[in-house]
C-alpha cells in the first residue's frame, strides 16, 4: 500500500514536471521571434542584459527608439543613455517601464516623448504583446498588464503566453527553433538602426484634431511619471520628437507647454527646431517623415546631447576607463551594422530583410 502511494506520488511529480517543461519548450518555440522586419518586439527584453548605470533614460514610442542614438550621445558628449521604448508605447507603458527601470538604476535625467499622450485607451493587442512579453515577471509587470489589456485579452495569456501563441504551430519556421531561447541583439542601447532613405514628399492636409484635450487616463499616467521622477530626484524632460507625422497639433502642444509650466518641467517641441538641428526630411527619414533614419537620428542626438549638457549638466564619462572600454565595443557594433546596412542598400536598393520578406510573401 505504502509502496503504491509512493509510486503514485513519484509518477505524479515526474509527470507534472515533465509536462511543465515540455510546455515551456513549446512556448519558447511558439512565441513570435522578433527578428527581420519586426525587430522592435525584441527591444524591451534586451535591457536586462545591460550593465545598468545610465545617466539618461529615454522612454516612449518609435519616436524615441528610431530617432535617438545613444551611441552618438556617447561619442559626442560622453553621455551614457538607454532607450526603453517599444512600438506604440502608451503613457502607462512608459510609466511602468520607468518604474521597472528605477528598480535597477537611478538616472539623472529621464526623457519622455509626449506623442503617446494622444492615446487614452489600450490600442492594440500586438503592440501590448511586444511590450509586455518583453518584460520580466514582476509586480510592475502585473500592474502594467492590468491597465494595458484590450477587451479580449486575458492576464493568464501574459503569465503563460502559450495560451496566446499556441495557434502559431501552423506557421512555425526554422527561425522559431533557432531563436527559441532568444534572438540576437537588435538594438544599440535601445536604438533600432535604419540607414535607408525615403524622402518626405508632402504631407496630407492637416485637418482639425479629432479632439483637443488629452484624455484623463493619459494625464493620470503622465502625472505618475512626473511624481515618480520627483520622488527619486530625477529631472524629467518632455520632448516632442522631430517626426512630422502623425501630426502634432498646436492645441496639443499648448497643453504640454501648460503642463510643463505647472509642474516645473522642461518641454521642447523639436519639430519647431528642425532647422536648428539641421534635419532635412529629404535625406533624414526612412519612411517619409514618420521616423528618422540613422543620419537624422545622429543629427537629432547631437542636438539633444548639447541640450542635456547645457540644461542638466549631464556628466561626460569619456575619461572613465571602464566605461570607455565597454562603449568601445558598442561603438564598433554600431558602425559594423551601419556599414552592413549601407552595403545592403547599395546592393539591393533596400535593406536585405525587406527583400527577403517580399520574397517570402
Amino acid at each position, binding site marked *: 500500500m505504502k509502496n503504491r502511494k509512493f509510486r*503514485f506520488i513519484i509518477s505524479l511529480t515526474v509527470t507534472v514536471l515533465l*509536462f511543465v517543461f*515540455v510546455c515551456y519548450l513549446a512556448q519558447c518555440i511558439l512565441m513570435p521571434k522578433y527578428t527581420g522586419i519586426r525587430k522592435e518586439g525584441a527591444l524591451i527584453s534586451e535591457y536586462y542584459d545591460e550593465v545598468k548605470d545610465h545617466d539618461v533614460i529615454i522612454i516612449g514610442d518609435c519616436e524615441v527608439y528610431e530617432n535617438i542614438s545613444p551611441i552618438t550621445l556617447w561619442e559626442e558628449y560622453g553621455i551614457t543613455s538607454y532607450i526603453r521604448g517599444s512600438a506604440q508605447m502608451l503613457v502607462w507603458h512608459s510609466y511602468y517601464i520607468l518604474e521597472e527601470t528605477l528598480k535597477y538604476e537611478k538616472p539623472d535625467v529621464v526623457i519622455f516623448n509626449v506623442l503617446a499622450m494622444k492615446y487614452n485607451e489600450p490600442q492594440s*493587442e500586438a503592440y501590448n504583446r511586444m511590450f509586455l512579453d518583453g518584460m520580466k515577471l514582476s509586480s510592475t509587470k502585473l500592474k502594467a498588464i492590468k491597465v494595458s489589456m484590450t477587451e479580449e485579452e486575458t492576464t493568464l*495569456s501574459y503569465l503563460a503566453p*502559450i*495560451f496566446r501563441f*499556441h495557434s502559431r*504551430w501552423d506557421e512555425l519556421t526554422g527561425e522559431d527553433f533557432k531563436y527559441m531561447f532568444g534572438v540576437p541583439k537588435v538594438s544599440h542601447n535601445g536604438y533600432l538602426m535604419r540607414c535607408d532613405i525615403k524622402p518626405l514628399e508632402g504631407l496630407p492636409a492637416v485637418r482639425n484634431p479629432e479632439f483637443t484635450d488629452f484624455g484623463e487616463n493619459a494625464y493620470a499616467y503622465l502625472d505618475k511619471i512626473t511624481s515618480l521622477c520627483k520622488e527619486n530626484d530625477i529631472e524629467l524632460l518632455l520632448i516632442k520628437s522631430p517626426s512630422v507625422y502623425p501630426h502634432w497639433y498646436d492645441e496639443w502642444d499648448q497643453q504640454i507647454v501648460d503642463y510643463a509650466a505647472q509642474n516645473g518641467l522642461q518641454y521642447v517641441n523639436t519639430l519647431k527646431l528642425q532647422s536648428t538641428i539641421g534635419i532635412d526630411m529629404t535625406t533624414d527619414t526612412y519612411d517619409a517623415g514618420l521616423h528618422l533614419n540613422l543620419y537624422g537620428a545622429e543629427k537629432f542626438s547631437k542636438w539633444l546631447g548639447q541640450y542635456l549638457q547645457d540644461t542638466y549638466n549631464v556628466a561626460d564619462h569619456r575619461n572613465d576607463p571602464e566605461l570607455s572600454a565597454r562603449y568601445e565595443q558598442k561603438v564598433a557594433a554600431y558602425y559594423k551594422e551601419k556599414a552592413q546596412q549601407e552595403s545592403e542598400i547599395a546592393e539591393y536598393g533596400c535593406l536585405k530583410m525587406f527583400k527577403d520578406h517580399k520574397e517570402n510573401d
Partner: protein
Amino acid sequence: MLFTSLGFLVFLAVLIPLYFLVPKKIQWIVLLVANAFFYVYAGTRGLIFISVTIVTTYIATMVISHLYASQEKYLKDNKESLSKEAKKAYKNKMQQKRRLVMILCAVVSFGIIAVMKYSGLFLRGTEFAQSLSLILPLGISYYTFQTMGYLIDVYRGTYSPEKNIFKLALFTSFFPLLLQGPITRFGDIGKQLYEPHTFNMRNFTYGLERILWGYFKKVVIADRILIAVKAIISEPDEYNGVYVLCGMVFYAIQLYCDFTGGIDITIGIAQILGISLPENFLRPFFSKNIAEYWRRWHISLGVWFREYLFYPISVSKPLLKLSKFTRNKIGNGIGMRIPVYVATVTVWFITGLWHGSAWNFIVWGLLNAAIIIISEELSPLYAKFHSHFPGLKQKWLYRLFEIGRMFFIMCSLRVLDCYRNVGTAFKAYSTIFTRFNYNILTDGSLLKLGLGVLDYVVVFCGVALIITISLLQRTGSIRDKIAKKPIGIQMAIFAALLFIILIFGAYGIGYDSSQFIYTEF
C-alpha cells in the same frame, strides 16, 4: 459561464476540493450554493424564473402527495362502508384533482418558456420579442423539462416527492446539466445528489479523463471546423453546390463534437463529484436507420418525449377511439398505424419547437416525423427485398451502406438547422443536385473558408481518433483499459491529451470563442 471559460475552470477547482472537505452532511448544500453561484453569474434575472419553477413545482408535488395520502386514508377508513362504485367514483374524483394541480403547475413553467422563448416566433423583430430573448434564462429548456418530468412522475405516483424544497432546488438547478443537459430523471440522480460522497480516486481519474476527452472534441475539432461551417452558411449564394455538401459533413462533425464533448464534460464533472449521470449518446452515427439514430442521439430528450408525450398521447382516449375507427374503416394494416403516426407527428412538431423558436426547426421536426413514418411504411417492402437476398443484412458492406444512408439523411435534415430560414435552406440544399462544382475540392477553394491545410489535417486526425475510439468502445470501456496500464503510462496519456488540447485547441484570440451549440436551446 461557459465550459470553455477560464472562470469555469477556476469554479471547478474551488468547488471540487470544497465538496469533499466539508462535512458529509452539508455536501449537498455546497452543491446548491455552487448552482446558485453559477446561475447568478449568468445574470440575476434568470434566477427569478428558475425560482418560480422550483416553488410552484414544490407546492404542486406536495399537494399531489397529500391528495394521494388522504385518498389512501379515506379508502382504508371506509373500507367496509363504501360500495365498489363509490370507491371508483371517489378515486376518479381524486385523480381529477391531482390532474388539475399537475396541469396548473405545468402551465406555469411551460408558460414561462412559451412566453420567453416562443413569442419571438410570431412577434419576430418587435422590440418586445427582442427584450424577451435578451433575458432568456440560462438552460431554461433543460431545467424546465427536467422538472416537469419530475412533476409528472410524482403525479403518476412513480415516486413520492422530495419534501425539502432546497433539495428540489438542487435537482432543478444542478449546474453541469444546465448548459446542455442531459435532461435527467429524478429517479436517476435525485438520491445521488443528496447522498454523501467520499473522494474516490477512480471516479476522479475517470471523470477527469472524460472531461479532457470532451474538451478535446469541443476545442480541438468542433471549434475549428465551426469556422468553415460559419463561412459556408453565411454566404448561401456564393457557397452552393458541393460547398453545401461539405458544409453538411462539417456541420455533422461540428455538432457531434460540440454536443457530445459538452456532455462528456458534464458527465465527467458529475462523476468526480461521485454522481453518475445517464449517458446521452450511444455512438449515434453507427445507427442504421433514423429511428435507431434517435434512440442513440440526445437520448435523454428522446426519452422525455417518449415517456411524457408520445405514450400519453398514443394511449389517450381520443386516439384509442381514432384507432378503433380507422381499423374498422380502413383495415388492420395502415388503419392500425394511423393513430401512432398522429402521435409521432405531434411529438416531432414539439421536438422541433424545443430546438428553437423558428419555423426551420418546426419543418425540421416534421421532416423527421415524415421520414420515420415513410420508413415504417416501407418496412414490408424492405422485408420482401431482404427475403430475396438472405444474408445481405449481415454483410459489412451493406451495413456501411445503411450507416452512410442514415448519415446522409441526417445531414440533409440538419441543413435546416444551419440556415435559419426555411427558404434559404431548401434553396441551398437543392443546389447540391443542380450545381456540380466538384472542382472546389481540389482547387484550394476550401482553403479560403478560414481554415488552412493543417487545420483540415487536425480535424481529419481528430475525427479518425474519435472513430477509432468509438470502434474500440464496442468491446468495453476505454477508461477501464487505460486504468489497467501502469500508473506512469496513465499519467502520460493524460498529459499528452492535455498538451494536444493546449496547442491544437481553437481557443483564444484569433478564434471565435463559440458557445456550445446546445446551450441556446
